[in-house]
Structure formats: C-alpha cells, structure tokens
C-alpha cells in the first residue's frame, strides 16, 4: 500500500461532506469534508505502487476544473483514472450546492 499527499489551490465552497464508492477491486471510496482554507488537501491510500505520477496528473486535472475546498481522502483498490475522476465528481456533486467563494 502506498500513501500519497497532494495539495491543490481551491476556490469553490462546498456545503456538506460526502462519501461515495467502496474499496472493492477496481474501485475506490472518497470521503470529502469541507474546510475554510483555499486549498484541496488530498490523501490517497492505494493498493497499487508505482503510479504516483498518474495520481498527480489525474488529481491535478480534476481540481483544475473542480477546485472544491476541503479535505479529500481516497481509499483505492486499483481503480482506473477514469473511475477515480468519476468518483471525485460524484463526491463533489453530493457535497453541493457549490458556490464561488467570495
């Protein structure tokens, strides 16, 4: 198992926490909790080693489009980047309605 930490700039405020997915083969769970800081703090725990750069670029793309402020915890059981993005979107949607921070 590998634990990765990332921080991305974030401007969008979410109103509630969100939980999606399961740690089943090829899937992951995402736990999101809103915070007041202008960042998205991400912790990834993944069963697969050697994909640090894939994680960085997948998360970078997501948070560039959806810069939701808060703590993001990803527990991964070898999900593809496409599924990671889908679960993040689902979590962001569940955490809404989302407004631009003033």
């Amino acid at each position, binding site marked *: *198992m590998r634990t990765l930490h990332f921080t991305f700039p974030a401007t969008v405020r979410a109103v509630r*926490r969100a*939980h999606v997915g*399961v*740690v*089943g*083969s090829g*899937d992951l*769970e995402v*736990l999101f*909790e809103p915070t007041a800081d202008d960042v998205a703090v991400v912790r990834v*725990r*993944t*069963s697969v080693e050697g994909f640090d750069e894939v994680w960085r670029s997948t998360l970078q793309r997501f948070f560039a489009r959806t810069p939701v402020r808060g703590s993001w*915890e990803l*527990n*991964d*059981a070898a999900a593809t980047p496409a599924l990671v993005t889908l679960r993040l979107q689902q979590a962001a949607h569940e955490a809404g309605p989302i407004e631009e921070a003033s």
Partner: protein
Amino acid sequence: MTTTMQALGAQAAGGAVDWERVLRRRSFLELDALTRAEALLDDGTTRVLCGPFDRLESPWLVPQDVTPQSDDGVVVARGTVAGAPAVVLSIEQAFQGGGIGEVSGAKISEALRLAARAPMPAVLLLETGGVRLQEANLGLNAVAEICAALLELRPLAPVIGVVAGSVGSFGGLSIATGLCTRVIVTPEARIGLNGPAVIEQEAGVEEFDAADHDLIWAVDGGVQRHRTGLADALVIDDAGALRDAVRDAVAAGVAPAGRHRSERLDVLDARLATVDPAAPPAPERLPSLWGGTYEPPTAQRRPEPDQAEPGSSGTRSSMRPSDRGRTWIAALAGAAPEPVIDSVLRADTADSTYLAVVPDPDNPWYRARQGQVGVTECAALARTIRAVVAQDDGRPQRRAIVAVVDLPSQAYGRIEEMTGLYQAIAAAVDAADAARVAGHPLVTLVVGQALSGGFLAHGLQASRILALDAPGVEIHAMHRQAAAKITRRTVEQLDQLARTIPPLSYDVRQWATLGFCDGLLPVSDADHPTDADVRGVAAAVRVAAHDARTGPTDLSRRLDSDQAKTVRKASRAVREALTAQWSTR
C-alpha cells in the same frame, strides 16, 4: 431456460415465468451494502451509525499493505420496518469479500447487543466469505461474539438472515445464518460453511469440482436450501420483493423456545440418519428425502446410492490425526472416557463433564477421520450438552462443561456441505451458548490445534479459555497453507508478518495477548503429560470453572480484559461509539 429465468429472478422454484416482474424489477443484487439496507427499511427512515466519517477502520490492514475502508465494510443502519424500529446490519461484499475483521465484527455483535437492550428486530445481510484472514484470530473470535449476541437477541426479537447473493454466506458467519429466527434467500444465494474452492484445494477435485457451477448451486444454492427447509422464504431478485419478505419475517415475531432450527436436534439427527456418506443421495434427491420444512423426514430407509463412492483420493487430507484430545480427556477426568459416537468422547467427574472431538479412522463421514468437526460430531456435541443442561435443571449447582480441544478444523467435504454443515455447527454453538447462559461454567482447554470452524463449533463459546503453552498448540482461523494461498502470500511471508501482527500469529503466546486467553499453562510434555503436568492443568481448569460461576454469562469479558484494553482498542471504540449513537443524534 429455467436456470436463466431463475437467475433473472423471474421464476422461483419451477413456477411460471413472470415477464412483468422481470421488466419492472429493481435488482437488489446490484446494490451495495448501504443501498441494500435502505431498500429493506421504510423509505426515508435509514440512519447510519458508525458510518464512514466516524473512521472506525481496521487497524490491522495498513501494516499489511492493504487499503482499509472507512466503515470497515459493515453498514449499521437503524430505521423502521413497517413502522416499527429495527436495525439492519449489512455487509459490503465488495470490500475484502465481505470478510469479518475485528471492527466489522464488533459492529455486528455490539449492534445485536444494543438491539437486545430495548428489543427490536435485526436484519442481517450476510454476504461474506467468512473470517477476514488478515485479522485471523480476531475475526474468528468476532464470529463467536456475533453468534452469542445473536442468541441474546433471538428470544426477545426476531433476527432475520437475508442471503440475496453474489459472494454468498460462507465461512464462520454461515453459522450465524443457521442461528437466525428466519432466513430469506433468492435463487442467486449460496449458503455453506466451506466454499467449493477451499474444499477442492483441501480434498481434491473428485470431492468438489469448484468449476462445476451446477454442482455448486445444487449443493449450496438458495433454491436447494429452501427446498430442504434450511431457508424459510425464496424470493426473486427484486428490492420490493425482498422488502416484503423482510416485513413478513419480522411480523411473524420471535419463534418459541426450542423451535429454532439450531435447537431442533431431532431434525438434525433424523436427517443425518438418511444419508450414508459412502453412498450419498444426489443433491437433487434431498428435497424429496428431507422435505421442505425443517421437520424430521418421513423416509425411513436410506435411499439407493446415486453418487459414486469416493476413491482413495476422496479420503485424502493434509491433516494429521493427533492423540492429544484422547490423552488429555482421560488424564483430566481420571477415568476412561465414553464414546458419544466414536469421534466424540465424554468423561464425567462429580462436578464436570469433559468433551473432546478425536480422530476416528473408521468414521463413515470420511472427511472427518483426522479429528475434524463434521456434521455428526456437531450433533453429538449438541445432544450431550443439551442433556447435561437438562439434567442439572433445578440443581443448586450446575456442572462445569470442559471442552478439551485438539482439532485440525471443521470437515471439508461435498456431502457435509450438501447436508448443511453450517446448520450442524449452529446446533453445537447454540447448545454451548445455552449452557453458558443457563449458568454452567464453560471452560475450554486447548491442548493441540484449534482451527477455524472446528474451534467455533467446539470451544469458542466458552466463558474461560485456557491453552497449553507447548509446541504444537495452535489457534487460528485457517491452517497455514490455505491461509497463505487465500491471502496471496507464501507461508514464509505469513510467518514474517505474524511476528508483528498478533492476530495473524500461529504462536499460542501471541494468541494469548489478544484479550480472550484466561491462562497459558506450561507443561513438560503435551503429548505424554507427566503426573505433575496433569495436576497443574487440572487445577487451572478447576479455578477457571470456579471463577466462571461468578463472572458474566455472556462473552463480554473478552472485551473487558486488561489485554483487550490495549489489543482490542478498535473493538472497544466501536462499542463506545455505537452505544453513544444508538438512541440519539
């Protein structure tokens, strides 16, 4: 066609195909643990306790490089069923195959205990491969605690087992299925103690071909379990149909004492008498042989055989018979034990009854010849314990019941699964629990191996557990080779990990740190005990029996012992959080 339609859930037990139902159904099988729970509770009433944000995850997975899940794969959901409070305990089969670990197990057992305090029905969604082998001994103990908690609730409110299907209900928790007030299945369900793959691995492809889909469903499948009276309701894979079935099952209330399957030793004995393991009936013959209700079968004679006798390969086993059980029961009782059956020995003293499962090279149930606990061993244990409890009714002091344990596991066999080994073990567990609750001191003494479902059947319901501190004494959820294979490790890797992760260890001294050991007893020779060895152990058993008389009759000591306070912190955190969240929020 029939198989396809049954798989679609449009046709149950040979009825007409209901196309309307196929088109408008909402598949229950496709739902995850949370949405399965929501589907069974009244709309909008679900309240999840100890959910993902409580972060009660397993402390044992990260050190083994396994990604944990934030709720450890069990959803505890309170809500209402047809307007009345109920709790649903739903296992997430996608996470670790629904395997029960320390935290997920504690969530189930503590929720059942809380449900018993202000009695409300519990619905168990039992999709599980059994004990999570990464947490081996803590998972095995969790199953024993779940069984005891279930039996605490069952006289007060119905406990409904639902096996809808995909992973099936296998391993230790299949015993809990056998303890439920009522069991609901779909045609996709499977219930069995040992899964086909483990049987094939242990006994060879001649015993059980794990690639034979039809055979698996013929033996373990929901339709078969329902047709032989081991499940009460067979419903199609439809969320609405399952909700209706759960409502009906809850509305039927508690079953009268003595009427639960796991208490019906008359049925168990009579059914087993119709099966000759050397010439067993084919699975498809069982429904007519046994009938669809759990009552003694009317068939008097054993049917003509229609399964082939096993070849020499059918009786092969990696397990070696051991004499320790026989040696120690005789030594402790100070008299020659009497056979209940040839593989179950009983010895009586003025204040104690000793019981041991021992090897029997001529056991007609050929998968239980090396001392494994099989169907007839369970029936013999249950019958003996029930008789002791009945004899001591009204006496000022109930006898101690001492389980002398040296068993390589439960029996791995096709015929055992066909006849419902899980249901037989449930009978043994129920009897042991009933004896403990009635006030018999239950003491377990492990003198050799105590592995897996065998230990759940004989030993793990005790109020006190002692073990010899000697070579060859081993307590675990599964024997080394199989555990290594299933967790995709080598035996060496497993042993290496076990040095730092106590629940994984095969070393009894590590096991003794987990919080449920009441004494590790040094002896000079476990195989040929000296007089001093026997005196020392007998004294420890006496003290344990004496202490048990004044202790709790449930298994709560295992969570309140000094060692549990450090090693089982996670279980204790579950108990605390669930208790706090049960009624408020």
